């Protein structure tokens, strides 16, 4: 064996060793760009409801964890390709996603809403405060009709690969001009600049932005839940990883019983978004 072979061999060996150290930990993927669910502080450290909840769940599971950052649009592919073992990124449980991955039980739920800039013609729509799309009642159907008329020909901006995009693509509110962005930050920027007539996301994402930026962003129309908006936010796990799924479900049960989820949710959302 010549010297180069030796060097390469030992380098590969050290890679294997490093790989094994990481394999012992549960790796949790999050976006770090969807406050208050998950975001980053000035120093670049991951913070937010799900980051804190992840550490709590790991304590109940009794294993070591690391939190990995991943762009939203590659979240599910990255899980499938084993870049990490679980997703905690404000990801709603939907039938479409369940074709690709499994979900734990939901740990939190939060309604979606349209947002516009103050003074927009879309402000003050005549709709109920909230509608559920799982089995839409007469009032919900009427609200969808009102929205269809109001949004016709308008540009509505959403983050890519979200329940909000799915809802607009579903045709429930007719033909709107949907624009998709890589991050919610970019959606907020273009809403404020006036390129978007309206934007659709978690209601709390807009109130968080309005508060931090001081921009006159206001919610309009009903809040949405059910149907295309899924059934709460859960931990995404690979389909073949049934062992880990069980561990997370048990941990969520314990955390809920001990009041941890409500406590952490109230801290980050300002209200109890736990479920």
């Amino acid at each position, binding site marked *: 064996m010549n010297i180069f072979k030796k060097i390469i061999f030992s380098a590969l060996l050290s890679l294997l060793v490093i790989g094994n150290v990481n394999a012992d930990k549960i790796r949790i993927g999050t976006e770090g760009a969807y406050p208050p669910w998950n975001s980053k502080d000035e120093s670049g450290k991951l913070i937010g409801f799900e980051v804190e909840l992840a550490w709590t769940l790991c304590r109940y599971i009794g294993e070591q964890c690391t939190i990995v950052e991943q762009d939203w649009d590659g979240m599910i*592919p990255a899980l499938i390709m084993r870049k990490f073992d679980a997703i905690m990124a404000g990801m709603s449980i939907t039938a479409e996603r369940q074709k690709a991955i499994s979900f734990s039980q939901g740990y939190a739920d939060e309604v979606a809403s349209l947002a516009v800039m103050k003074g927009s013609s879309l402000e003050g729509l005549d709709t109920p405060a909230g509608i559920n799309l799982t089995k839409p009642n007469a009032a919900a159907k009427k609200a969808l009709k009102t929205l269809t008329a109001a949004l016709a020909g308008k540009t509505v901006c959403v983050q890519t690969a979200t329940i909000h995009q799915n809802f607009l693509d579903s045709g429930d509110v007719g033909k709107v001009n949907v624009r998709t962005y890589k991050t919610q930050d970019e959606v907020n920027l273009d809403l404020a600049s006036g390129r978007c007539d309206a934007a659709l996301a978690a209601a709390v994402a807009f109130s968080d932005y309005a508060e931090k930026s001081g921009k006159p962003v206001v919610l309009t129309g009903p809040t949405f839940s059910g149907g295309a908006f899924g059934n709460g936010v859960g931990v995404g796990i690979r389909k073949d990883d049934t062992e880990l799924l069980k561990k997370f479900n048990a941990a969520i049960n314990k955390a809920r019983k001990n009041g941890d989820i409500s406590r952490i949710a109230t801290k980050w959302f300002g209200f109890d978004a736990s479920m």
Partner: protein
Amino acid sequence: MDLGLMISSFPKLLNATVVTLKLLSVSLIVGLFIGLLFAILRLNKNIFVNRFAYGYSYVFRGTPLLVQIFIIYFGLGQIESLRSSFLWVILKEPYWCAIIAFALNTGAYTSEILRSAFQTIKPGIIEAGKSLGISTKIIFYKVQIPIAIRQSLPAYGNEIILMLKGTSLASTVTLMDLTGVAKYIISTTFKPIEVFIVAGGIYLFMTFIIHNLIKFLEKKYQH
């Protein structure tokens, strides 16, 4: 490997290729004019004109195309006074923002390609024209420009291919070009490998066509 997905996404991606080709051709045409103008400015003896042209090409060749698009799209969109001006009609549209960024970028590279082509023209050719009593203006348009274009064909062919790949950044400002639609399909199927292989194949095919077109033109204008 999901072959069915590759086949079903192919027509959608082909449709999006039209957007990519539109972006490419419009920005190349505008960029060629910008490039020619700035190449001429670079050859100007006036130091201020010369420095200005150099500054433009230095800035646009020295910064990433992605940064340029973001500054033009998200950056300019933040300026209140700009939003209330007539310019906003153009800057409001992601399509025009992308065209502006691409044209300014390729214009900078094209100006450098053409400048070096102009400088390789032997002084003897220009002097020959002068001795025949032809005006410098006609020499410039009828002799220098055609020679410069022929000289710069191989380098410009490369620039077209680089720009083709550059247009994929249009998807970052919400345009549904080839890359944008590929990402959209992935967002509902969660299968990036299959979709990107098909999209990559289409890019490769376009590169193949451009490459051969330039080779053909090079042969045609050889002497």
